[in-house]
């Protein structure tokens, strides 16, 4: 009886959700392959540890930048393709500040402000890092956030507001125009070369079963900044009136309007919070990976979209979780597939989620 019931329930499940079953099989195969690798000594625990740590860091950046995207996606109802270039813009403004403070008197001011365009100044030569030049880095973080806020407010006021009442696709196409204009304007100013920005930061080795996992000072900085900001956003949304208004607007805009919520002010607050987080995320991303190019934000954007959709549009916890999953996928997929396909693996995860659970892990359109 019990067995028969279990069997029929299992059969119903297999018929109704075939994708889930296929996924479970694939996951089992992957895990089995990994265990086999560990058992035969081909894969080391320390390697896995390094990849997990790398994925965690990547995931924090994606999650932090994803919060802003998720908020504008749910409150303003459009997929903002210029978000990636806000990341780059924040990064460039922040790094210009860092270079200026760290290198003042040691190099030409123009070269410093252009973040060493054309190889005029090197970040390594200026010995930039969290421990070596803490003031420059902190100032850079603040300026990156501030500049991204100003930029997103200015773009919203001049470009998005006139078409805000159109449908989401109109806004989406407009945002693609913004993205290209911003990206190539930055290339015009800062040049197209990818530059190294930091000196090698001091790191410590954690012993793990059969090897060491290295964690450096910039990893810790990223962890602290990202976790702090995420906690801050959580408190803001849950504890303040503004947060409540935002959640109401994400839920039902018309209802929010008749309830007397000043929607235009809430929209502005959304851009301020989202833009600020995005700019800081851009700065931290560059601090963590140590190189800066004008395409960085755009390349990250698709992963951010994947994270936001994975987590469920509108949910900041979803964006954070999605970011971590996507980051871990992109990093850990090299255990199974060639590294050239790591990015593809992250997109595949997103597509799979669209198939299985289109509304995302934290489904529902509430900024909570």
């Amino acid at each position, binding site marked *: 009886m019990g067995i028969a019931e279990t069997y029929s329930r299992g059969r119903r499940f297999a018929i109704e959700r075939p994708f889930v079953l296929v996924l479970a099989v694939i996951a089992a195969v992957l895990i089995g392959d990994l265990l086999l690798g560990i058992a035969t000594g081909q894969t080391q625990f320390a390697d896995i540890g390094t990849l997990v740590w790398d994925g965690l860091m990547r995931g924090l950046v994606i999650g932090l930048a994803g919060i802003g995207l998720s908020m504008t996606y749910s409150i303003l109802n459009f997929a903002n393709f210029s978000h990636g270039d806000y990341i780059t813009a924040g990064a460039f403004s922040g790094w210009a500040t860092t270079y200026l403070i760290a290198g003042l008197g040691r190099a030409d001011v123009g070269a410093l402000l252009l973040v060493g365009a054309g190889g005029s100044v090197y970040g390594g030569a200026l010995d930039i890092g969290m421990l070596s030049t803490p003031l420059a880095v902190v100032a850079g973080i603040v300026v990156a956030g501030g500049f991204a806020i100003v930029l997103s407010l200015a773009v919203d006021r001049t470009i998005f507001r006139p078409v805000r009442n159109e449908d989401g696709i109109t806004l989406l*196409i407009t945002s693609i125009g913004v993205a290209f204009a911003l990206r190539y304007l930055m290339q015009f100013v800062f040049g197209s070369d990818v530059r190294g920005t930091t000196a090698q930061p001091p790191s410590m080795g954690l012993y793990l079963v059969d090897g060491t996992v290295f964690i450096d000072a910039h990893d810790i900085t990223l962890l602290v900044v990202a976790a702090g900001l995420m906690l801050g956003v959580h408190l803001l949304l849950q504890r303040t009136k503004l947060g409540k208004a935002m959640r109401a607007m994400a839920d039902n805009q018309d209802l929010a309007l008749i309830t007397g919520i000043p929607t235009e002010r809430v929209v502005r607050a959304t851009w301020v919070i989202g833009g600020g987080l995005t700019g800081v995320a851009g700065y931290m991303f560059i601090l963590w990976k140590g190189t800066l190019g004008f395409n960085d934000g755009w390349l990250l954007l698709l992963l951010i979209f994947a994270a936001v959709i994975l987590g469920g549009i509108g949910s900041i916890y979803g964006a954070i979780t999605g970011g971590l999953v996507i980051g871990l996928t992109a990093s850990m997929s090299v255990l199974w597939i060639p590294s050239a396909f790591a990015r593809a693996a992250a997109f595949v995860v997103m597509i799979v989620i669209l198939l299985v659970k289109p509304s995302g892990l934290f489904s529902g359109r509430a900024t909570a």
Partner: protein
Amino acid sequence: MSVRDDLAARMPGGDAGLIVFVLVSAYLLYILAGIGLGYDLRGQLNSIATLTFYIGVFAMLSLALNLHWGYTGLFNIGIVGFMAVGVYVMALVSKPVFVPGGAAQVGGLGLPLWVGILAGMLAAALLGLVVALPALRLRADYLAIVTIAMSEIVRFSFLSGELQQFSVLGNTVGFGGGSGLILDFVPPLQALFQSVGLWGVYLGFVDAFQVIVPTNPKPVVDGIVYGLLLLGFVSAFYWLLKRTGESPFGRVLKAIREDEDVANALGKDTDKFKIKSFMLGCALMGLAGILWLIPQGAVTPNFFRPRVTFFIWIALIIGGAGSNTGSVLGGAVFAAVLYQGPRYFQNLVSAVFPNLGSPAGFGQAIGPLISQLDPVPLLLYTVDSIRQLQLVVMGLVLIWLMHNRPDGLLGHRKETASVISLSRPKTMATDGGSVEGGDDE
């Protein structure tokens, strides 16, 4: 809308007249620019051939996109991925078999070119099916994200070393990785004319051309003939899409664009219609990609950056989504003004002011403006980096269009599905009907 009506009304010959007018003015402009640049006849002919080529490819691609977005309402921003798959599969099938020590690092299957083109289109259509299956049932913006992610996956895959070289049926084949592929088969024009037995006639025609261009006329003639061939393909695309749009199949597509739930409620399996339309458009995009890259003689994965998709979207939006005539028009305007225009402007400036050195970077360009109020270096730098600024301008044009003319020059016409005209006769105006008649929006 009123501006568009005025345009169409003022133009003798309607839409066709408008296209002819735009093309003629574009060519006149380029001939004038050529005179300004001091081109000889050969240069002029080359410049016209290049312009025709770009008008051809952009018109084809925006026609294919019009099937997706204008007819069916599918928001595809991964066009370049379908082009890439078309081109690479075509190369894989049609490149000559690998011989050690040859110029090419990898070979192909050595099949005729037309087999390769068909295989490329088929591969693009199948990729379209794979993308469409998960995404079509979801919102339009999800399809957008999935398609653009797909186009980047395709680019990274062709860039990767893993697919650089592999073996099929005992032949060493591959996609060449980051260093790209040489398309070392028989040139397409030669293949075309040989297949209809006119290659000798064509060579005779080229020789006759020596009257106009005395030395080595073949590249010039090839360029012009290829441009004309592309215009022929544009007409074929146009005809195909017009037929598709007017067929019962096309009427369902338009119904889906307007309101999918209604189409569904009327018993149409909208998913199936959307997938078919998507696959057809993808195949056409693959073909357009092949036609774009064949004459270049080589292909690298980084050609297929998302910016090409962006170009095609601008072309479609300039012309107006939903209108085939508008797509062709948009392709022509985009190619002539936004794509080739800035490059000609740059050439013109350097022809008028030869040997002006330009600053190496933005720093050297802006420095004199700040210290001595000298704007010349900045202007020089601006002209020198016009290829980047071109994209800034395109972005601003796109924003402007979305603000002021979201329907483009000839956009979103309501094409009635009925066989007879549904508009009220003008004499009905006496009993309260509108004098203008309501047949157009």
